């Protein structure tokens, strides 16, 4: 093998080795073909052209892989954001129910609809039973169509329930 052909072969081989797997097989095809070219300078021109083609194809493939990776990353982020938003919406719904319930309780107490002797029962009813019951009903109704939202509602309901148990028992 002449020095010219040897150098050309080495260059092409080096670039092919660095190329992504799909392009690498094409590099091997160019190397294989080069060894069947009789003229030394033709072989060199073939190798140089092949090197340029491999560099271009490798660059395109790397960029394509990067684009796919970014798209997958973006899609995963979007899914995570959607999950968080749905759960937070559920917590928000439970919070609104609790606020309305507490406003009703406060109104009833201020307007003396609730006797002082019934205060604890009213608190238990409007701070625990009504909001938790509504959360449970909402969860049952929304479980199939809005599973993530329901998870948020249930989580908030459970936290409220746990808080109430600690408050009333302690």
């Amino acid at each position, binding site marked *: 093998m002449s020095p010219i052909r040897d150098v050309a072969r080495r260059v092409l081989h080096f670039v092919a080795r660095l190329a992504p797997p799909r392009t690498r097989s094409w590099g091997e095809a160019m190397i294989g073909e080069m060894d069947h070219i009789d003229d030394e300078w033709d072989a060199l021109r073939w190798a140089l*052209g092949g090197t340029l083609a491999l560099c271009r194809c490798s660059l395109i493939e790397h960029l394509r892989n990067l684009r796919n990776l970014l798209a997958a990353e973006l899609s995963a982020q979007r899914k995570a954001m959607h999950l968080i938003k749905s759960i937070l919406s559920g917590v928000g719904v439970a919070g609104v129910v609790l606020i309305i319930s507490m406003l009703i309780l406060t109104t009833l107490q201020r307007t003396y609809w609730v006797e002082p002797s019934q205060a604890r029962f009213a608190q238990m009813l409007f701070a625990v039973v009504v909001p938790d019951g509504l959360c449970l009903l909402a969860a049952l109704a929304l479980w199939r169509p809005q599973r993530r939202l329901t998870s948020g509602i249930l989580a908030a309901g459970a936290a409220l329930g746990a808080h109430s148990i600690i408050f009333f028992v302690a």
Partner: protein
Amino acid sequence: MKERFRLSPQTALVLDAFLERPKSWRYGYDISRDTGLKSGTLYPILIRLADHELVETRWQTAESGKPPRHMYRLTPEGLRSARAQLRDYGHRKSSMLVLREAKI
């Protein structure tokens, strides 16, 4: 099937070379000599054609001491597509020539 690709004059040359002997397997250097295209132009075209499943490839074991050669042939889909694309390309080219002549 993948979307129809843009037919450049060089791609048209390669397809035309394949259509000369549609059934036979061709070597890269052989196509290069027929079309006058350098390897740097030819191989990206072959890669694109193979990606679009218009060209099939296989390795041919060569005589001892030489590496195997990569061979190329139009797939049946490639054959249909090449004929249709070259026909369209011919129409486009002739209408462009008419326009060019009209401008002159």
